[in-house]
């Protein structure tokens, strides 16, 4: 049947999607840069983003109110100082027009605050800066002004349906946005789908330190381990995660976890059967990350790449 068709791939082969260099694994987005480096972003889900939106709404309303009050007080003060002069008359005229400017300012804040912030501050509004989120184009690149405007205009659709409360717009329930971002694989709300954007978590992490052990027996035991011990990737991952977390776990729990791996390693290395499981894993960690020599070519390559360019 289709196995024999001209198409060589089997019917059970994975479908080739539209994204060849982008794939979503869980909530991670893999991006390949022009430098041929692929790195991951963590996508921000609807509830995190709702919080950022509430912050932004608060900031824009409070910020705009403060601005109005400050300008009004300033103008009032200046018109007193310059009363009777030409400048005073000018300020008086501006104050007469003040109400109109205030209303126009509100319109601009309401419709354009988010778009202006995202276009000027590289995909971040105040709320997103505080929470460490950033808007990006769906391919992982920075957004442009058109996308910023579109995704902020179409927020209105995401806020629907509104609960009507007499005259006026009513209370937004945000159901459309919630449904859209739940269905779409990249957590895109309707505005994001129209503009082709995503929101990622852009937080700062600290350089992780390698663990050190105060117990001298760890180093001693690591010397005893066979010199040709080269752990696999998954083993490295397991060891690193175990050592990172053991500080926060009760001894009984570490014992229970270490029991999964240690006995088989004891048998493999030919160590005494009563070797402490926790101690052995720590020694393997030391051996793997602090003592195993890298193949020199790769290390040299890293240095030459780094410095040579």
């Amino acid at each position: 049947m289709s196995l024999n068709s001209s198409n060589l791939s089997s019917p059970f082969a994975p479908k080739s999607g539209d994204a060849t260099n982008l794939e979503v694994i869980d909530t991670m987005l893999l991006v390949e840069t022009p430098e041929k480096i692929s790195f991951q972003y963590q996508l921000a889900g609807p509830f995190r983003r709702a919080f950022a939106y509430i912050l932004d709404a608060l900031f824009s309303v409070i910020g705009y109110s403060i601005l109005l009050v400050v300008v009004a007080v300033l103008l009032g003060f200046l018109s007193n100082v310059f009363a009777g002069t030409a400048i005073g008359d000018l300020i008086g005229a501006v104050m007469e027009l003040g109400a109109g400017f205030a209303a126009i300012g509100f319109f601009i804040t309401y419709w354009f605050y988010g778009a202006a912030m995202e276009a000027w501050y590289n995909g971040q509004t105040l709320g997103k800066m505080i929470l460490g989120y950033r808007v990006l184009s769906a391919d992982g690149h920075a957004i442009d002004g058109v996308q910023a405007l579109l995704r902020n205009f179409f927020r209105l659709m995401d806020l629907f349906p509104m609960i009507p409360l007499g005259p006026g717009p009513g209370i937004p329930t945000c159901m459309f946005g919630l449904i859209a971002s739940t269905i779409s694989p990249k957590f895109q709300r309707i505005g994001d789908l129209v503009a082709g954007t995503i929101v990622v978590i852009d937080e700062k992490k600290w350089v992780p330190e390698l663990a050190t052990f105060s117990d001298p027996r760890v180093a001693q035991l690591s010397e005893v381990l066979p010199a040709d011990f080269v752990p696999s990737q998954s083993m490295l991952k397991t060891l690193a995660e175990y050592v990172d977390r053991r500080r926060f776990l009760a001894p009984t729990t570490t014992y229970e976890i270490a029991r999964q791996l240690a006995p088989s390693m004891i048998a493999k290395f030919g160590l005494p059967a009563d070797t402490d499981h926790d101690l052995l894993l720590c020694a393997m960690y030391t051996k793997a990350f602090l003592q195993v020599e890298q193949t020199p070519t790769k290390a040299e390559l890293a240095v030459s790449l780094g410095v040579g360019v």
Partner: protein
Amino acid sequence: MKAAKLIESRQSAWQRLDNLCEEFGKRSKNKVPPEKAREFANLYRQACADLALAESNQLPPTTIDYLHQLVARAHNQLYRSKKFDRQVWYERIFVDTPKRIFNDTHVHIATLIFWGLFLISTWLAYDDTIWPGFAEQVAGAQRLEQSEEMFNQFGDRSVTTNSLMTGFYVYNNAGIGLVCFVTMLFVPVGMVTLSFNAMFLGTVFGYMFRPETAAAGMNFKNFVTAHGPFELTAIILSAGAGLKIGLSWLATGGLSRKDSLIKNAREALPIAMCSVSLFCMAAVIEGFVSPTTEAFLPWWAKGLVATACSLTLMIYLIVLGYPRPEDEMEEFDAA
């Protein structure tokens, strides 16, 4: 080299890149001092190399995670958001947008729907014999009486009120235009908004020009003439731009729904922005020119304003928008 040593030797460079990211992130401008840009680029390439070799260098997973987010952060600063480039603004506003509007089928459809419903409603509301009670059914008897009363006591307003009303018109009318644009994403919903606005406006026009409301009608005519051209065109443009987006994911023209949506939204945005600016200009006229009394500014003067507005629109939409032979040549070349 040992993993521990590698991390130790690279840590200061990573830290420096991190600090530069932080520093650049605080700026809104894309320009940075050249020596810093050079340093940043170098550090970024080094971090990329570190990340590429992280797995084979047997770095611990926490460090690999750290490198992922460091490279991502640096990538975000390297390829920053492109702002509205001033050099292309002129071309966008005076070359691309009028052509797009003139040639856009969706704008044509919105024009037909709006003017069609508007004129029919006007006629039905004016001549109460064809469909008795049409005006009351559409706009509501109370609302009609209110507006008639409003235009009966039509007087001079202070500058402060004028300015407040201008602000209100910008907020309210341009807001309605944007709502119409956005809700058109679901065509039926947007169509209700557009049709309702067309019919409501048409009904009020028809009602006000009835012989029995002549007094209010005079003032009404006086009020609406000057800002009419800009405001009605603005409604049509916002609806047309919205319709383009709303239909784009239904009739995709061979693209995937998502791609078609994104492409058409990009094309429709200038039309919507044109509509917003028309609304704002209309609001200024509506706030300061329209409410003046007959004695201060006679009706023919407002007619002149309306004519000037219409001429401006015609020059913008037709003279600038009419397809040129060289455009067809370009399309031919592209094909």
